[in-house]
């Protein structure tokens, strides 16, 4: 039987879990400032995340998803993007959007139940956090088509999880991107779980990267806890997209080190040992080692950095808590550019009733 097509999927890692280089590093890894900048944002993501959980526990924000364990995947990818690129994030991508200029107080507003948070700073054309799984992949494809039609040298990037790869929307987005040769990167952070479902239950495919084969685009696997591997892969994929090379699927292998959200209790479905083991492979550990070895990063600097970041986060928390409550009128004012008469009448009714807080 003649073979009519052949494919292979590669895996890339630069730093092992102890921060030791496994192969020659890309140039950016020698740039002390750039590495320090990314390392700083990884820590910021972690510090912010910790504070978010604590705000939820004290009832100051609602249910929130943790990015614990995703620091390298989020920062490495964001760092490879340009301001004019378009990001379509899932709900867990705090580090990536903060890098792109969103204020932490705005993210807190989103999780605090205030739509104004999504009217965020930074990349104003980026999509808001997306909750319906995988639907943002189609938005990224559409944005990519817009960029292509305008002839911009820019690309769109969709971020989603392992569970998202089971949705038809994920596949339709990839297939359209391939068929139309769109400048888009589909970035799957495989953190091993979709709430309680381990990735092995999502699909019989041995990698998620190979889903690219179904649509005729390149797909590859990288160590998602290795900042250098992530950024390297993200640079290649985004550059391919910007230069007319079309779409890429990247699977970043990582692990969700927290509960799915603050409404979840992961001990119900996964053993503590597994989480501890994964913790030892956490992105920040190996980056710390790397920073120490390459750039003589010290414990003093580490402590000072974290203190500084905590103060930064605290300022944003204060800004969030100090934000006056939205007015009920606001829920009517952005349904249409031109408010229909009947809706205006409903707004007048709503005005008459105080809005109780949650009991």
């Amino acid at each position, binding site marked *: 039987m003649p073979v009519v097509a052949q494919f292979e999927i590669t895996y890339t890692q630069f730093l092992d879990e102890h921060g030791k280089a496994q192969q020659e590093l890309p140039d950016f890894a020698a740039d002390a400032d750039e590495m320090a900048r990314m390392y700083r944002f990884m820590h910021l993501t972690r510090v912010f995340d910790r504070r978010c959980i604590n705000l939820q526990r004290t009832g100051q924000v*609602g*249910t929130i998803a943790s990015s614990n364990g995703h620091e390298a995947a989020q920062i490495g990818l964001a760092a490879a993007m340009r301001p004019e690129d378009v990001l379509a994030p899932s*709900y867990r991508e705090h580090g990536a959007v903060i890098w792109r200029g969103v204020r932490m107080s705005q993210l807190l507003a*989103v*999780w*605090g*139940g*205030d*739509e104004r948070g999504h009217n965020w700073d930074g990349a104003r054309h980026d999509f808001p*956090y997306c*909750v*319906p*799984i995988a639907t943002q992949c189609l938005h990224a494809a559409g944005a990519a088509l817009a960029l292509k039609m305008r002839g911009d040298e820019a690309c769109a990037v969709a971020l989603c999880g392992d*569970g*998202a790869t*089971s*949705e*038809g*929307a994920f596949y339709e987005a990839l297939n359209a991107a391939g068929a139309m040769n769109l400048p888009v990167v589909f970035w799957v952070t495989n953190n091993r779980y*979709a*709430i*309680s*479902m381990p990735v092995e*239950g*999502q*699909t019989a495919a041995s990698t998620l990267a190979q889903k690219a084969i179904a649509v005729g685009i390149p797909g590859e696997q990288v160590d998602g806890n290795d900042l250098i591997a992530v950024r390297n892969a993200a640079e290649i994929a985004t550059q391919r997209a910007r230069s007319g090379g079309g779409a890429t699927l990247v699977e970043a292998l990582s692990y969700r080190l927290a509960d799915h959200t603050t*409404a*979840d209790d992961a001990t*119900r*479905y996964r053993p503590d040992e597994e989480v501890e083991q994964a913790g030892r492979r956490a992105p920040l550990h190996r980056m710390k080692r790397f920073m120490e070895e390459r750039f003589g990063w010290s414990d003093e600097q580490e402590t000072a950095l974290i203190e500084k970041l905590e103060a930064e986060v605290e300022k944003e928390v204060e800004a969030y808590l100090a934000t006056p*409550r*939205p007015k*009920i009128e*606001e*829920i*009517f004012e952005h*349904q249409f550019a031109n408010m229909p008469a*009947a*809706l205006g009448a*409903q*707004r007048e*009714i*709503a005005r008459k*009733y105080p*809005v*109780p*807080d*949650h009991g």
Partner: protein
Amino acid sequence: MANLTLVEAVNQALAWEMAHDESVVVFGEDVGVNGGVFRATVGLQEKFGIERVFDTPLAEAMIAGLSVGMATQGFKPVPEVQFMGFIYPALDQIISHASRMRNRTRGRLTCPMVLRAPFGTGIRAPEHHSESTEAFFAHMPGVRVVIPSSPVRAYGLLLSAVRDPDPVVFLEPKRIYRAFRQEVPDNGEGLPLDKAFVTRPGTDVTVITWGASVLETWNAVGELADEGIDCEVMDLATVSPMDKETILESVSRTGRAVIVHEAAISGGLGGEVAAVLASEGLYSLEAPVVRVGGYDAVPPLARMEYGYIPGIQRIKDAVHECMES
């Protein structure tokens, strides 16, 4: 006899029916080991095995389509969609296949299945977790739409839904999943799928509601009673096909109707109730029908959601408006 919350009653009904009907299968996202994000299916996998209670890949159209396939081949799938906001990818399979398999094959194949989904606002959840679009499913010929609003009704209606030979969309008001408890005898007795529940007899005005709004309605009606306004309260429950008779009979006595639901007013199911009154009950109407519902806006995030859904005062004002005109 167990003192249960609404969500516990759902669980008890599923357990009863699985124990008594081999063909009942429960699946969805996180319904197995995790027992459902609201614990509705907790313990079922241990009791009935991973063959009959299992987690699926993350794909709602697949969950619904798989159910259609199984139902036509002799099983009774009871899939869960994690939140109503994520039911839309499954809508095609419900309207294009589940609802019409019997009709398009003239009875050769049928589709007995119950698609369960928590719906409505009120749990400080992120975007898309507060949908109340029961009206979509109520406009699908061949589908029953059932909404329980108490532990006792959740148990009895879910049993009947699973036993029904046709597809049922079973929407659970998650805001009151744990709002109160009732004695729910685990006797396997179902409740009729074609009868609205008059939960309080009254003479002045008929207040028709369903879902979590029964809670505010109940409180409003209590306060109105102190003012001397005697409301008849109806939980429509089996919202489609709709029990017009009970609605018309009640309003023929009270002469007045107020409708309360969380869904956006325009195009909402309250319109169908009002339309039934306008065409089949007009001569009993002594006052305009008053609809109180979510506004014609996207359900807001947590901080404004209680300004969006009908609150006690808004319901009381609506009843006053109805009484005074």
